[in-house]
C-alpha cells in the first residue's frame, strides 16, 4: 500500500507518495489531489523521492491533478523522481510535457 503525506506551507501543498504509485494507489492520489484543490490550495508539489514505482495509471492521476490545479489558477509540479520513475516519464514522453524539479522547496520558483 501507499502512504500519501500532505503538508501545506505558505499556500503550497507538498504531497509525498511513499511506496508504489500504481493503479490502486492512483485512485487514492487522485482523491488526495482533488481534496487539496477543493480545500483552496491550487499550487501543489508532488515529491516523488520516495516513490519506488510509477505506472501509467499513476501518471494519469498526476495529469488529472494538474488539470484541476490549473483550472483553479494554480499549477502542479513534480520533484525529485527516482531513476525508475523517470524511465516511465521518458517512455510515455511525459518528460516533454512536464519537467521534474530537482528540489521541493524551489519547485515553484521558476
Amino acid at each position, binding site marked *: 500500500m501507499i502512504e500519501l503525506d500532505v503538508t501545506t506551507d505558505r499556500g503550497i501543498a507538498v504531497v509525498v507518495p511513499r511506496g508504489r504509485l500504481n*493503479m490502486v494507489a*492512483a*485512485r487514492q492520489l487522485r482523491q488526495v489531489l482533488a481534496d487539496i484543490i477543493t480545500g483552496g490550495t491550487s499550487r501543489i508539489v508532488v515529491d516523488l523521492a520516495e516513490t519506488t514505482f510509477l505506472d*501509467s495509471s499513476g*501518471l494519469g492521476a498526476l495529469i488529472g491533478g494538474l488539470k484541476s490545479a490549473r483550472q483553479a489558477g494554480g499549477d502542479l509540479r513534480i520533484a525529485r523522481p527516482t531513476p525508475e520513475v523517470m524511465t516511465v516519464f521518458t517512455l*510515455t514522453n511525459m518528460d*516533454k*510535457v512536464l*519537467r521534474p524539479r530537482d528540489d521541493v522547496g524551489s519547485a515553484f520558483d521558476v
Partner: protein
Amino acid sequence: MSRRLLLLRGIVLVTAILGLNYIVWRWLFSVHWSAWWIAVPLVIAETYSLVDSLLFGMTMWRLKERGEPPPATPDQTVDVFITTYNEPLDLVLDTARAAVAIRYPHQTWILDDGNRPEMRDAAAELGIGWITRSPDWAGMPRHAKAGNLNNALQATDGEFLLILDADQIPSPDILDRTLGYFDDENVGLVQTPQYFVNVPESDPLGSQAPLFYGPIQQGKDGWNAAFFCGSNAVIRREALMQIGITRYVHEIGVGVDRALRSARSVLTAARKDLGDDEVGVRKAIDDVLYDVGRTRREIARGGALLDATYRFQTRVAEIRRQLVAADLQLVSADLDLIAELDQLAGMSDQSLATVSLEALDRATARDLSPLGAIEAVEALIRAVDVDRSDEAMPVMPMATISVTEDMATCMRMHGLGWRSVYHDEVLAHGLAPEDLESMLTQRLRWAQGTAQVMFRENPLVQKRLSWPQRLMYFGTMWSYLSGFAALVYIAAPVIYLTLGVLPVQALSTDFFIRLVPFLVVNQLLFFVAANGRPTWRGQQYSLALFPVWIKSVTSAFGNVFLRRDLDFSVTPKERKEFAVARWDLVRPQLIAMGALALAGVAGVVRLAVGQASWLGTSLNLVWVVFDLVIFSVIIRAVRYRGFEPPDSRPPDPSPSDASPTRAVAPARQPDRQPARQPASRRGSHRGER
C-alpha cells in the same frame, strides 16, 4: 511448421504468381481501350480484388494456431466490465450473473451509460458494482462506448479488464483460459471469438463470422496484429493507460503548436490597425508577440511544454494587467470571439489535435481591438493547454476517433510495442440482431468506424507499426472498399449482354489460360484456409451488401474531411414487427438483380437474332447467374422472421408469436456494440469474374 500451414503457403505463393501474371497481362495487353468507360473500371476493380487476395494470402502466411493456453497465474486483480446503454434489464442481468459466476477471482461492474436507477438497484442486489458517468462528463462529448469505458477505467483499479457487451454471456472459465497469456509482460490484449446463439444453422443474416474469428484473426496474430474487437477480450490496464498518456502528450504538443501560430497572426493583425499615438498598446502587443516567439523557441529546444505554456500564460496575464492599469483608452474587447475561442476545441467531437486550421483561422481572422487580441491569445492557449477543456477527462485511453473504438485503440497499442493474442476458443455466447434493419445498421456502423480510422489514422503511415502490422490493419480497411468494385462487377455483364460492349479485347485462349487457373487456386486457398468452417454466407454478403459498404466509405469521408455528421441512423429500440417484409431496405440490390435478369434475357435475344457471340454471351450469362445466386441471400434476409430455437418451436409459428429469445433480441443496440466486421467482408470477389 504444420502441414496445413505448409500447404497454405504453397497455395498463397501460387495464387500470388498467377494473380500477378493475370493482372499484368490485363493492364498491358487486354484492355479494350475504345470502350474505356467500362474497360478501365473493370480492370481497376480486378486489380482491387487481386490486392484483396494478396492481403488475404499474406494473412494466411503466418496463421498461428495457439492450442491450449498457458495456465492463469493466481492472485492477479481483474475487473469485469459489462457495457450497456439501453438494453433491457433482464438481458444485462443475465450477463451480469454469468460474469459473477466466472471462476477466477474478480470484481464485476455494470457500466450503465443509461444511468438507470433500476439497474443500480439490481446491481446492488447482485452485489456487483454499478458505474455511471461522473459529473465531469456534463456538457462534454460522451464518445459512446469508448467514453463509457474510459469513465470506468478511472473508477476501478484491477490489473486486467475483461470487456463484455451486454448480451455476451461469459463462460465460467473465460479468465482461466486467457489470463495465462499475460505472463508475457509484453502482452496487452487477448481477444476471443464472438459467437452468436440466436442464429440458425443457415445464418440468413450472415451474423456469424467463422472465417474472421478463426483463420483471419489467427493469421493476423501470426504477424502480431490480432485485433481488439470490442467485446470478449481481456486487456492489460497498463497498456490502455499508456495509450492514454502518450496520446495526451501528443495532442497537447500539436494543440499548443497550433495555438501559438494562430496567436502570432492574431497579434500581427491587431498591431497593423494601431494608430501612431497608441504607443503603450503597441508595446504590449510587441511584448506578447515576443513571448509567443520565445515560447515557441523554448518548445523547439525541447523545453517541457506545459512549463512553457504556464510561463507564457503568466507573462501575458501580467502584460494585460499593466495595460489595464495604465488606464489607456481601451476599445472593448470582442467578447463573443473570445468565448468562441474558448469553445473552439469543444466544437469538434475529435481531439484538440484535429481541430482544423481553418476553424482557427476563421475565428482569428476577424478584426480585434488590441486588448481583445491579447485576451483572445490567452483564451486560445488556455483552450489547448493542459486542462483540455474540450474533454471530460484529460487522459482518454480508449480511442475516440471512430465510432468503433476497438480497432483504433488496438492500433495504438501495437504502436507502443504491445503484443496481442488471439485465442481461438468460444468463451462467450452472444446475441445477434434478428431483423434485417438492425443487421444493416450494425454492418454500416462497423464499416463506417473502420473507414473513419482509415481516413484519420491510416495504418500505412503509422511509423511505430511494423510493415506487416500496417498491412494487416490496412487489409481490413481495403476489404471495405469492395462496394465500388461490386458496382463494376454488376455493370460489366449487363453492359455486354445489352449493348454488346466487351471490356476485354478478346475472349481468347490467352484470357482463359490466365484467368481460370488463378480463380481455381484462389478458391482453393479460401477452402483450405476455412478448414471446414462455413464461408458461403460471408462470401454472399460481401457482394450483396455493396450499398452498405459504399455508403460507409462516402459517409466516413464526409465526416472526416468535410466535417459532416455521420448520418447516424436511429437504431430501432422497439421489437421489430416481423410481419412486414422490408423490401425497401434493399432497393439497390433489387434493382441490381432486376438489371442482371433483364440483361440475361436481352443477351439471349441478341444471341438468337445473331447479334452476339455464343462464347461471350454464355460466359456473361454464367456471370449473371453467379451474381444472382450471391444476391439471393438478400431475399432470404428480407423474409427472415427471427430466430426460433429448434426445441421450443411453437405449434403455430405465426409472425406475431414471441419466443423468449425474440422478445429480447431486437432491443440490442447494435450501433453501440462495435465489433469487427465478420467474415462477410472476406473474399467473394476473387471468384466471380
